[in-house]
């Protein structure tokens, strides 16, 4: 019983952390580049459209993301041969789809609000391309950390996509959120609330560690 609970919680953490890591590796540079391009070249229609797309995807229902990834990974789908359906990897893929736009959007806002002087100073010191991006991201690290945390919060609390793509298989793809759905449908409200409390405690612990790291970064 305890073993099973720890397994479920561990998988929740693994899936949420992996998808947040991948989404951050994609979304942070993307958001930063978007903001820097806008600053360097002014408000172009293509950038506005790109921004509108990113923020539209904020509103992507997780169930839809789950269904799309299901169709992608299904045996009859284009990636069926990879046999990723009903595996944690498939669940990670679905969550990357959901949280990358969020990380991108929040990073964009954070980088856009970094002062012009910082960017000019970096440029005058010869920074360009990825070096400039890295410098600005570092300067906007509080906002970027927020982007990563919001992404993680969304990933660990998400249920619609992981239910469809993972299948809520006991001992294999069951995570805390899908276990809550199952126990609720069985009428075991006490167990469901207990699982929810456990999830919140885990999230609290993670955020506490992240904020400590952040504060230490500022010395």
């Amino acid at each position: 019983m305890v073993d099973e609970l720890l397994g479920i919680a561990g998988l929740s953490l693994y899936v949420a952390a992996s998808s947040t890591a991948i989404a951050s590796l994609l979304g942070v540079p993307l958001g930063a580049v978007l903001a820097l391009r806008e600053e360097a070249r002014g408000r172009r229609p293509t950038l506005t459209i790109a921004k509108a797309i990113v923020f539209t995807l904020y509103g992507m229902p997780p169930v839809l993301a789950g269904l799309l990834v299901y169709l992608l990974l299904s045996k009859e789908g284009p990636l069926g041969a990879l046999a990723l359906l009903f595996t944690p990897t498939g669940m990670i893929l679905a969550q990357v789809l959901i949280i990358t736009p969020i990380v991108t959007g929040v990073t964009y806002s954070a980088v856009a609000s970094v002062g012009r002087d910082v960017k000019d100073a970096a440029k005058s010191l010869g920074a360009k391309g990825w070096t400039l991006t890295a410098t600005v991201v570092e300067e906007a690290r509080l906002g970027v950390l927020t982007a990563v945390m919001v992404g993680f919060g969304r990933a660990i609390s998400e249920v619609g996509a992981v239910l469809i793509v993972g299948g809520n298989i006991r001992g294999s793809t069951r995570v805390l959120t899908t276990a809550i759905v199952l126990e609720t449908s069985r009428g075991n409200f006490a167990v469901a609330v207990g699982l929810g409390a456990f999830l919140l405690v885990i999230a609290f612990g993670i955020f506490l560690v992240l904020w400590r790291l952040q504060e230490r970064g500022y010395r």
Partner: protein
Amino acid sequence: MVPRRVLIPILVAALLVAIALPAALPRGREIVLATTTSTEDSGLLDYLLPRFTADTGIHVRVIAVGTGQALELGRRGDADVVLTHAPAKELEFERAGHAAYRRAVMYNYFVLVGPTGDPANGTGPDVYHALRQIVRCLCPFISRGDDSGTHTKELQLWRAAGLVPEPSAWYREAGQGMGATLRIADQLRGYTLSDDGTYYTMADRLDLAVIVSHEPPLLNNYSVMPVNPSTHPDVRFAWADAFAQWLTDAAKGQAFIQSFVVGGRQVFEPNASP
């Protein structure tokens, strides 16, 4: 220090490999079973599957969904074997060539349940009479409304009773699983059709009484169908076949189904033909 422009792609690649690796490694002797929530919620699978694995060394990954979704998983080859309870839909599945074969496994009865006191006054042996009584009093009826085996059965019963319910103030479609639907019926003091396993498992938490049960129109037949390997070459037919054979074997699956009790009650009656 390694420049960032080198470091970042390396980190990305390493992470992707680490995540993809477990899925790329060959899986063990394992099949995916798509089945209905009733077989899992009743605890039957928790009782049977460890015994099957001990006998054969084959592990079973269970996707417990409505019969509609379970059959769709089989139709797409995403499940290796299905265990469902909607004969009409199963025959259609079989006719379309998705099943290697279809075999009866077990049965129990659906139960028509309603608020204690039975305001519609439908209690008795005749389920059609009970349904007509519910319509007469316009008492709330909560339908699963989700294309599940139970929903399919419910629609057949209405049709056989000569009635066509439309979503309205008294006829409501929950679109949810059996447990959730029973709770809605409980809260709204409504009637609903349930599989008896789920109902009896939850009965002590519900203010719902049996209106009609154990009558022939309420028979609930479960069948197993391994997915056809000639239309879906990727399915693990040999192990799916072993599962279906084991389940219908009088000395194995059938005997265990017979001995599976919840709260002193036998939940399913095995009925595979020898």
